[in-house]
């Protein structure tokens, strides 16, 4: 029986690992600086735009006088990049129980890695009712994730709270939806120093094994297609899938993001050492 979320497996997969952060500082607008390393030094690192909730005592009034905008002095100890983990909560992520479980585990694993590295992970579950939580709420959110979303990731993002600027944005999805890859990738990359697109697909998504006359219904849109599935039809599917995924890879490259495909039938530990290894590094 597949567990909804194997927390011990997540812990084992996360043991001794931390999230790999980008080495090159990425300058965004008005000092959205991602620290190359974290530390507790008090030296000023840079400025950034004031955001509601920030301590007004850290406002740089000189910069305010110069620019007319609220600028905050970013202290080194504040330059602690946020990690945003976006989880596609659409119904296709629950095409199989294994796929759903793996999605939860990967998301929790990423949050755990971030926390282990002293980062502040924020989990954004893009479900029918988007939900956001920190590392403390991540497990609970994921365990209760229903994967009932009927909208694609792009539509879900429109309905979700706006993405925050962060250091690392990790998106977990199967990427099997119709969208303009370039536009969506650019949207996801906006405000993030580093972006990683994790594809989690069911083996049946990648290599269907059905045959005969079938009525194929899309899990999310409800679109029905009647096909008599033959070897030729399966070949056509695989071709279209490969082209579709290549589109996402190309889009990721354009925004300097990484596209990491993984299959849900492999345990998390193997994924951590395999296709998802580029995301992690040994912890200190």
């Amino acid at each position, binding site marked *: 029986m597949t567990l909804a979320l194997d927390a011990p497996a997540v812990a084992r997969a996360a043991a001794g690992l931390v999230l790999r952060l980008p080495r090159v500082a990425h300058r965004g607008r008005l000092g959205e600086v991602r620290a190359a390393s974290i530390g507790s030094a008090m030296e000023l690192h840079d400025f950034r735009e004031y955001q509601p909730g920030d301590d007004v005592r850290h406002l740089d009034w000189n910069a305010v006088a110069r620019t007319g905008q609220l600028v905050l002095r970013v202290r080194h100890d504040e330059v602690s990049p946020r990690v945003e983990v976006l989880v596609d909560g659409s119904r296709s992520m629950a095409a199989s129980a294994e796929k759903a479980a793996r999605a939860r585990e990967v998301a929790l694993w990423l949050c755990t890695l971030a926390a282990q590295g002293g980062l502040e992970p924020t989990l954004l579950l893009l479900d029918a009712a988007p939900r956001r939580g920190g590392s403390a709420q991540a497990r609970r959110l994921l365990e209760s994730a229903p994967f009932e979303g009927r909208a694609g990731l792009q539509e879900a993002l429109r309905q979700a709270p706006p993405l925050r600027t962060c250091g690392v944005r990790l998106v977990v999805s199967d990427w099997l939806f119709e969208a303009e890859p370039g536009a969506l990738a650019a949207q996801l990359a906006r405000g993030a120093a580093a972006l990683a697109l994790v594809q989690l697909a069911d083996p049946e998504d990648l290599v269907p094994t059905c045959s005969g006359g079938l009525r194929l219904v*899309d899990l999310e849109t409800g679109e029905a297609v009647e*096909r008599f599935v033959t070897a*030729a039809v399966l070949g056509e599917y695989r071709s279209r899938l490969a082209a579709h995924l290549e589109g996402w890879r190309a889009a990721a490259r354009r925004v300097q993001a990484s596209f990491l495909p993984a299959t849900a039938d492999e345990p998390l530990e193997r994924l951590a050492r395999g296709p998802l290894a580029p995301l992690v590094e040994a912890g200190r």
Partner: protein
Amino acid sequence: MSLGAPLGLLALGALAPLALVYWLRRRQPPRLVSAAFLWRSPSHRAEAGPRLERFSRELSFLFEALAVVAAALFLADAQCGAASASSHLVVVVDGSLSLRARGPDGVEAAQRLRDGVRALADERRAAWLTIVESGLVPQVLAGPRKDASGALAALDRWSPGRPRHALGPAVTLAREVAGELDAPVFVFTDGPGGDVASLPSGTSVRSVGVRLDNVAFVSAQRLDGDTGAVLTLGVVSFSRASRTVELQVCDDTGRLLESVRLALEPGVPAVARIASTAAGPLRASLPDDALPEDGVVTLWPARERPVESRIQGGLDPGAERAIRAALAAFSGQRPVDVGTPRADGGDGASAGTATAGEAQLHAPVLVIGDRGSGARVQVGARGSLTSYLGPFFTRREHPVLDDVNFEGVVWTAGDAPPGRPLVRAGKATLVSEESDGTLHLNVALRRSNVQRSEAWPVLWANVARLVRGEAPGFSARNPTLGARVAVTVPRRDETGDPPRWSLREASGHARPLLGTGPLPLPPLEHAGRLELLRNDRSVDFVEISSVDAVESDLRSRGDLSSELAGAGAAAPRAVAEPSSSDRGASRSWWLVWAMLALLLADAWWLGRPARGHT
């Protein structure tokens, strides 16, 4: 297309479960996929959202549905084209008088004909019949395509009795009515003769007649004179041996007036003349034999139609005297009635009462009056008078001017009268006729001598004859079968209401008469009484006797073989009779092959996964 076993169409009920299966297959639990858009073929339109997909297996469903339909049609014994025609029987029955002949067993040939048609309908499993009776004017007895039971019932009510005629027109009519110009036609007659040998191809002739001896009247006439009536009767023995028969003449009460023994040689006419002082109808009869209808004739006395003349007041006294003198010269004239016209009308046709069995003869009326009086003949001159010595130009073809000689006549006329000129002198119109038949004599008799010439009585005799001829009634009194008679409907009717004229046959069927004047009738095809009705009251009648020498000759009835053998190439080809083995073969087996082909096509269509169709 026809259906021999309509219940077989119940097999179409299999379409319902077939459709249900296809419908349910569409509603089977679908296979959920993460990305349906990756399964679309290029021909699919990319539309978001759920949509109703048409059957992708509709071709297979179509094959199977058509196979069900083919099976149902086969079970229902559907027949098309020539095969369909076999369930529709086209029959021509001979309507001639000879079909009334009774064989030695007492059964009429007509009854044998009915039995033959019924047997044929059963033999060929005919569901519909078109039956046409032959005659001088063929008529449809049943049809087109009437159900067999109704058609045979109509045949049961049918009774022949028509004069001799050709069968070809009836065959043509039967095909046209049936809507199948090349359909086989079955002709039932009682023997050869006529145009049997020249009937069109596709005609099967069956004879129900038998050879019989018969003695019949071949002619019957009555001449009435001052001393009584003289009957002239022609009798022929259509027998193989000499015979002696007794001819009897009775009056209308049945009292025997005369009895004559006739020695008859086979085929040699014998004439009997019988005088009688009886004034009413006389009935001549021969002993009953195979065809009793041709051994009885009833001869009515000639119609006495004296013209009733009425002279209106206002005429010049001299003219009135001259007219009276002219009219008195003719026998049969009723006394001249001087005075105003009768209040109830001019011709008195509506005054007579007629019972169902007796006809009143209405006297024709000649109304004579002054110019402008509205009378039928208006005599007088108006305006400036001019005398004419001739030459007189006349329309000789007009019956009023038959044998009228104006030589030596001095005719004084006034202004031209209305109507078409009949007699002219120069530009002056002396005699004219209006469109309604009103005659104008534009003459001032005081200054003329026409009333003293030989033209005067001849002219008035022609007028009386003209008026007599315009009286309503038939042109003949005792016609025989096939005779042509005319019936006269008056142009002028002095009564207030426009009359309705109609003819009533012996069967009771009445049909309206349209038109005025002498109206020729079609050849008389049914014996019995034919009545002329005015507003449903009998005005005149004729008694049609069953006298037809050809139909009375029963010696050659029955055998058709000699007729067909002798005709050679002109003989009608008999339609192939269906054999017992043909009954099973008449099914549309092509429907079975079609069903198998459809099922094979369906199996092939469904079993194509190796080739991967979309």
